[in-house]
């Protein structure tokens, strides 16, 4: 079960994160202006801006939250109450690759529990933990809308579907060596057309 405690492990090795001296609003000035232009009410830009902050550091820092509050003319608690409602925001550093395995019924019927056991064994971590090198964090999550192609997992922005043990080994190797894997899903269609002429 997901919990704040597991998602906010203080001990994560975050040496992979590049930090710089610019503030969030300086660094993403144009992108912030573009996002703000889409909404007649500023607060609507909150989730999009939190995503920008998370992309920058892998998690949303307290200083970014304060800057966003200032930008949107919100109080810090208003930002905090929103960010804590949504599971996709990290409030503490995560591993470079955040592996999220779906465990809902549809994936469980086709073996997601086995996938979780494989990953636990291969990486030596339990859900909610990160590897000592700071590369991988593992979470067990609820339905990611890929039920026909389970078992599946999401690593950062990418989906990996119809997982087998071999495929998983290749993905982990690719991630370690290249930072991404060609086995990730493209535009989704399943089943593929059978009567291709």
């Amino acid at each position, binding site marked *: 079960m997901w919990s704040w405690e597991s998602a906010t492990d203080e001990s994560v090795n975050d040496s992979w994160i590049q930090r710089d001296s610019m503030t969030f609003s300086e660094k993403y000035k144009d992108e912030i202006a573009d996002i703000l232009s889409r909404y*007649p009410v500023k*607060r*609507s830009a909150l*989730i*999009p801006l939190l995503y920008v902050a998370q992309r920058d550091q892998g998690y949303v820092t307290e200083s970014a939250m304060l800057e966003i509050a200032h930008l949107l003319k919100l109080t810090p608690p208003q930002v905090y109450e929103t960010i804590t409602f949504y599971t996709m925001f990290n409030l503490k550093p995560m591993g470079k690759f955040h592996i999220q395995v779906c465990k809902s019924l549809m994936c469980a019927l086709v073996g997601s529990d086995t996938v979780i056991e494989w990953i636990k064994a291969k990486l030596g971590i339990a859900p909610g933990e990160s590897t000592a090198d700071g590369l991988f964090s593992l979470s067990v999550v*609820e339905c990611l809308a890929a*039920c026909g192609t389970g078992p599946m997992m999401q690593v950062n922005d990418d989906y990996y579907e119809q997982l087998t043990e071999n495929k998983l080994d290749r993905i982990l190797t690719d991630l370690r060596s290249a930072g991404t894997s060609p086995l990730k899903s493209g*535009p989704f269609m399943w089943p593929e057309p059978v009567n291709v002429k």
Partner: protein
Amino acid sequence: MPQHELILLKNMMQPGYAGSLADYEKAGGYQALRNTLGKVSPPDVTAMVRKSGLRGRGGAGFPTGVKWGFLPKDYQGPRYLCCNADESEPGTFKDRQLMERDPHQVLEGIVLACYAIGAETAYIYIRGEMVLGSKILEQAIDEARAAGYIGKNILGTGINADVWVHRGAGAYICGEETALLESLEGKRGLPRIKPPFPATHGLYNKPTVVNNVETLANLPHIISRGPDWFAAIGSPPKSTGTRVFCVSGHVKRPGNYEVPMGMTVRELVYEHAGGMRSDKPMKAFIPGGASAPFLTPAHLDVKLDFEHVAAAGSMLGSGGVTVMEEGTSMVWAALRLMEFFYHESCGKCSPCREGSSWLVQTLRRILAKRGRMEDLETLLDLCKNIAGRTVCAFGDAEVAPIQSTLKHWRQEYVALINEAEAANLIRPEPVGRH
């Protein structure tokens, strides 16, 4: 297998179709928009949609044209369209395919809906995990904007409709339309108390329509081929058109199948999805996503349309058909779904927030052979006190797996409890009855 005409998946099934603007235009795309904007009056568009019998594809199945008709006619301020792409009902993965493979079909539907309801801004609220989908949509919007199909003064008609992609952030409840609006306003996704309905007090308290991706994708076809053509497909008069059913679980060929509504479960599962994946027979299926009660093989000849599935004691919901083979523990299956609902309960209403936790605890205990016979009464009692007592339909949804498995497979619960009694281990008192 009899071949049915594909409507929504037709383009993407063509070899080489990549979903670009050029591909879509070549397949006849944006013709409906060209022939409608400034040529057919918005009320006439709404009338066509009403006549087609199109009903919402997100889960509730509310008639789309009627929903549009609820907008105040004399209101002068801004109106909004929200495309509900927060596909998160377990068992459902059709919108993902519609958006990632043929994004312009969805966009054309969005602009047509904007025109019909008089909205100049539309937001596509896509679930946060679908990063690829949101990128594909944004790229498609840029293409369509450059070609004059989206934005200011569309095709020189003076009509404006801007479309923006807005990513959610991992909350199932934001698929509920008022929670979606709250989330879009940058708040916690807590459903609103209705009335007032979004039609009068929606996004930023302005008249708003929230429609599902698949619903909107049907619009270009209804407009170009006429409401009568659409109304004749499927199971008229109340369930018209096709549905993209998402088949998952223990079948040979899981995936998305677009078939006319009214097809039997048997045909969908055994003809289209290839039947069961092993020699084991079917034990159970869910006809419409996790919120729909379980049905048994005795219901295999139930027609997949709104009325027949409801009459069988379940609901067509989002069209997610999940199949389970003999040997699957129904207590375990109910627990898996219940854990989902427990995790996703937004916490606004006490019966759902507390009840979901109690249901999970009780189910876990029964499954761990620590249950008591009274637990079954507790389960049903809790279900009774959650369903219908919450602000949104989540409460009704979360009790569905338990009530339906207890109805059809009570002996499995009893067997686990009998084992517990025989083992005579320490068993806790039922929750809520201390």
